[in-house]
C-alpha cells in the first residue's frame, strides 16, 4: 500500500520503520527538513518537507494515489486538518492522533463527521493498558488474540518458584495445564524455547493461554494474581485522568499525588471517588505518609522519564507493590527494561502498535492476512495472528511434517472459537486463525513461516 505519514516524531518514525519492513511504500511529511533527513537516512522511505495540512505538500507526497494517511504530529487540530484535506484530495483512509481529553469525550462524533478511519488517543491507550495490568498484576504485559479468547502474557519467574530449573516440556505435565511458553527473555537475549530449554528464576516468560487457564497457571506456579485493591498514582496528567475514569466503577481505590494545586482541584472535581493529594511525588516522607509500604500497586506517571524511573525504583525498595512506570523516550529501551521498574509503559509505542494493527487489518482486505501483531520484545520477537486463506500451502498437513523456519513456533490454532494448542498431529485448516511466535520480524503472510 502507499501510505503517507505526517509528522516524523517517535510515533511517525516507529510506524515508518515497521510499515516499510512490511513492504509498504512510505512517504513522510514533516516541517523539519533536518529531522526528516535523519529518518530517510536510516529508513528506506521518501521525505517531503512542509506542512502536512497544505494541499500542495500532500500532492507532492502523492496523496492522489495513496491508500492511507496517518497524521501523528503533536497538534490535534493539525492532525484533523491533515486528514480532512487528505480525504478530499485523495479519498483515502485516514488515521489521526487526537489526544486532548476535551475532544476525547466526543471522539465518535469527530470521527464520523470527519470520516476518520481511526482516531487514536495515546494517553487513553496507555491508560487502558495500565488498567489491564492493575487487574492482572502478575503480568508485565498482556495482549489478546482471537477476539479476546486467547491472551498472551509476560511475567517474571520469581525466586523460589516451582518453575525454576524446570524444562519447558515438563511444565505442562507437572502442572497438568496446557499453556504454551512461547518466548523467554534472559538478559538481552530472546529465545523461542524448545522442550529442553531450562527455565530459571528471573527469566521473563511470555505464554499463551485462555484467560481462565492463565489464572490457574499463575496460581499453580505460586504467583498471587488477584486484582489489586488500591494503587498510588504519582502525577495527575492525562493518562492518570483516563485511568481513574476507567476504574471509577471497579473496586480499586486510587490515590493520586499531584504537584499543581489547580490540577488537583480539577481532578477532584471530575473524579469524585478518588483521593487527590496535593504534594510533590518525589517527597519520600509524603509517600511514606500516604502508605507506599502498604499499597498494592504504584504507578509513576509524571511527565519526566527520569523522575518516573527513580520513583519506581524507590517504591520497589519500600514495598512489594506492582510497579508501573511510564517512559516517553524509547531510545534506551534495552537499558530501561533491564532495571527493576515493573511494567514499563511507552505511550508512543502503544500508539504505534494500535495504528499498525489497523493498517494490517486494512491490508487484509488487500491480500495479506495478518490479523493482530503483538510485540513481545520490540524488534526482537513478535506474535502474529494470521487468518488462513484458501491458498495457504500448509492446509491439511500435520504440523510435524512441515518444515518451519528456525526460531518460529505455531503457538495456537483458533477454529471457530475453539482454541487448540497444537501438537504434531494437528493440522491447519482454511478459516482458522493461527498465532505464530517468531524472532524473524516482518512476516507478512502465512506462507512466510515455511522454510
Amino acid at each position, binding site marked *: 500500500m*502507499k501510505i503517507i505519514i505526517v509528522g516524523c516524531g517517535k510515533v511517525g518514525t516507529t510506524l515508518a520503520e515497521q510499515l*516499510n*519492513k512490511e513492504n509498504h*511504500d*512510505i*512517504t513522510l511529511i514533516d516541517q523539519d*527538513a*533536518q529531522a526528516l533527513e535523519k529518518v*530517510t*537516512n*536510516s*529508513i*528506506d*522511505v*521518501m521525505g517531503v518537507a512542509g506542512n502536512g495540512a497544505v494541499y500542495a505538500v500532500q500532492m507532492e507526497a502523492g496523496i492522489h494515489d495513496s491508500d492511507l494517511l496517518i497524521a501523528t504530529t503533536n497538534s490535534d487540530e493539525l492532525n484533523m486538518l491533515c486528514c480532512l484535506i487528505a480525504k478530499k484530495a485523495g479519498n483515502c483512509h485516514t488515521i489521526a492522533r487526537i489526544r486532548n481529553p476535551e475532544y476525547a469525550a466526543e471522539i465518535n462524533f469527530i470521527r464520523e463527521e470527519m470520516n476518520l478511519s481511526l482516531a487514536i488517543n495515546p494517553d487513553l491507550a496507555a491508560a487502558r493498558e495500565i488498567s489491564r495490568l492493575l487487574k492482572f498484576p502478575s503480568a508485565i504485559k498482556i495482549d489478546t488474540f482471537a477476539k479476546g479468547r486467547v491472551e498472551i502474557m509476560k511475567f517474571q519467574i520469581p525466586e523460589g518458584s516451582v518453575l525454576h530449573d524446570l524444562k519447558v516440556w515438563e511444565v505442562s505435565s507437572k502442572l497438568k495445564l496446557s499453556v504454551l511458553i512461547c518466548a523467554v527473555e534472559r538478559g538481552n537475549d530472546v529465545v523461542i524455547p524448545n522442550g529442553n530449554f531450562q527455565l530459571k528464576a528471573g527469566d521473563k516468560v511470555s505464554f499463551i493461554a485462555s484467560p481462565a487457564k492463565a489464572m490457574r497457571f499463575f496460581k499453580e506456579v505460586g504467583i498471587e494474581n488477584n486484582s489489586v485493591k488500591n494503587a498510588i498514582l504519582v502525577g495527575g496528567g492525562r493518562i492518570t485522568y483516563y485511568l481513574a475514569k476507567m476504574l471509577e466503577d471497579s473496586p480499586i481505590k486510587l490515590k493520586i499525588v499531584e504537584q499543581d494545586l489547580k490540577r488537583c482541584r480539577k481532578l477532584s472535581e471530575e473524579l469524585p471517588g478518588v483521593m487527590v493529594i496535593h504534594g510533590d511525588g518525589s517527597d519520600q516522607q509524603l509517600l511514606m505518609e500516604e502508605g507506599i509500604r502498604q499499597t498494592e500497586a504504584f504507578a509513576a506517571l509524571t511527565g519526566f522519564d527520569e523522575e518516573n524511573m527513580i520513583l519506581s525504583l524507590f517504591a520497589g525498595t519500600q514495598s512489594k507493590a506492582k510497579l508501573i512506570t511510564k517512559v516517553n523516550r524509547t531510545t534506551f529501551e534495552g537499558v530501561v527494561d533491564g532495571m527493576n521498574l515493573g511494567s514499563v509503559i511507552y505511550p508512543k509505542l502503544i500508539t504505534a502498535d494500535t495504528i499498525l494493527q489497523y493498517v494490517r487489518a486494512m491490508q487484509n482486505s488487500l491480500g495479506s492476512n495478518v490479523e493482530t501483531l503483538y510485540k513481545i520484545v520490540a524488534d526482537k520477537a513478535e506474535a502474529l495472528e494470521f487468518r488462513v486463506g484458501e491458498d495457504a500451502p500448509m492446509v491439511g498437513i500435520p504440523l510435524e511434517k512441515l518444515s518451519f523456519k528456525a526460531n518460529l513456533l505455531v503457538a495456537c490454532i483458533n477454529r471457530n472459537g475453539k482454541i487448540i494448542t497444537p501438537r504434531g498431529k494437528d493440522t491447519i485448516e482454511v478459516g482458522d486463525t493461527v498465532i505464530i511466535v517468531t524472532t524473524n520480524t*516482518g512476516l507478512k503472510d502465512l506462507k512466510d513461516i515455511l522454510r
Partner: protein
Amino acid sequence: MNIKIIFYFLGWVLNIEALLMVLPCMVSLLYGDGQLLSFLGVMALCMVIGWLTTHKRPANMVFYAKEGFVAVALIWVVLSFFGALPFRISGQIPSMTDAMFETISGFTTTGASILTNVEGLSPSMLMWRSFTHWVGGMGVLVFILAILPLAGGGYTMHIMRAESPGPSVGKLAPKVKTTAKILYGIYLAMTVVQIFLLLLGGMPLFDSLATSFGTAGTGGFGIKNSSIAYYDSYYLQGVVTVFMILFGVNFNVYYLLLVRQFKDAFSCEEARAYLAVIGASILLITLNIRGSFESLFDAFHHAAFQVASIITTTGFSTVDFDVWPQFSKTILVGLMFIGACAGSTGGGMKVSRILIWLKSLKNELSALIHPRSVKVLKLEKKALDSGVMRSVNNYFIAYFFIFAVSVLIVSLDNFDFNSTFTAVAATFNNIGPGLGAVGPACNFSELSVLSKYVLMFDMLAGRLEIFPMLILFSPSTWQKGW
C-alpha cells in the same frame, strides 16, 4: 566498520560483472574472433570469487554512510580491475596499466583511450569496451539496488547517494529499489530508441549498439579510429548529437514527464540553464568557425556536435577541434568544467553546482550592499539548506586541489601546458579527448605509467564526485573502532 557487508556487495558486483560479460561472449561467438576463452575465463573467476563472498548473507546487514562510501569506491576499483582482465589475457592490450586505464576510462564514461589503432581490436573486445560505458553511466550499484533484495531495513540510500552524481540526491519513489528501477527503465528505453534511430539511418547493428552505449553513458569510446566522423551522414551525427544532449539532462525531468507532470518538468531550472549554455555555445562557436566550413549549416552541425559532446562529457568527435580558433577551443574547455546536469549520466562539475555558486555570488553582492538583508538561496523553487551549500563549496575546494596536484604530476612528462592541463581536465571531468597531445586526433598512449595512474584516480574521483575516493584513501576510515 562492517567489512563483511562490503565484501558481500563486492561479491555481488563480481557476479553481475560475470553476467555483463555474456554480451561480449555472444559477440565473440557470432564473429568467431577467438576471444571467447578470455571472457569465459574471467567470468569463471568472477563467479568463483562472487560465490565465495555471497553464498552466505552476513549476519549484520546494517551499514552506515561510511560503509556506503567505502563500498562504492572499492567496488569501482575492483570492477575496473576485473573488467580489464579480458584485454590483458587476450593480449589485445598487452600492458596491465593500459588495460586498467582503458577499462576505468570505460566504466567512468570518460572515453579517454590509450589505443592508437582502435579498429585493430577484435569485435568482442570493442563491444565490451563500449558496454562498460553503458554500465558505468547509470552506475553498477544502482543496478544492483534495482535487482537485489538487499538490506531491507534501509541504509541503501547511502550507496545511492555515493554513486549518483549531483550535490543533493533525492528519490523518485519512496523505496530506493523502485527509484533505481525507474532510473534504469528510463535509461534502457532511451538507449533502445537511439539504437533504433541509428539503425534507421543505415548504421550496421554492431556499430549502432556500440555507439548508443557510448552515447547513453556519455562515455565516448568510438569503434572507428576517426570516431563518429567515420559515419559521414548528417542524420547519424545529428541523432548522436541530440541523444548526447538528452542523456545529459537530469533524469528527474524524464520521470516528471513520465508521470505527466509536464509543468514541473519544463520548469526545471537546471535543465533550462543547461540548454541555455548549450545554445549560447553553439551560436558563438558557429560564428567563430564559419569561415573554415563550406556552409553555415556545416559549421553549425559540427559546432553543435562538439558542444554536445564536450558539455555532456561524452567525448565523441566529428572533426579535429584542436585546429579550431582559440576562441572556440576556450569555450570548449570551459564547457568541460561545467559538465552535464546532476542526476544524468554525464560528468564534470554539474550545472546545478554552477547555478548554486552563481546564486550564492549574487546573494553575497546584495549582502554587501544591504548588510542586514536576509535572503535564502533557492534552487528548483526549494530553499537550499546550509549542508548542501557547504558540501558544494567543499567539493570545489577538493576539486581544485586534486586538479592542481594532478596537473603537477602529469607535467613531469614534459608536454606543453595546453596538453597537460587538458589531459587532466578531460579525465577528471570524464570527457575523453583534450587538446594538443591528447586531442581528438591523438590519444593518451604517450603518457608515462605514473601519469596514467594519476589520471585513473582522477577518472574514478571525477565519476564518483571525489569524496568516496578521498574517503577510501583516508587513513581515518581504516582506523579500528573510530
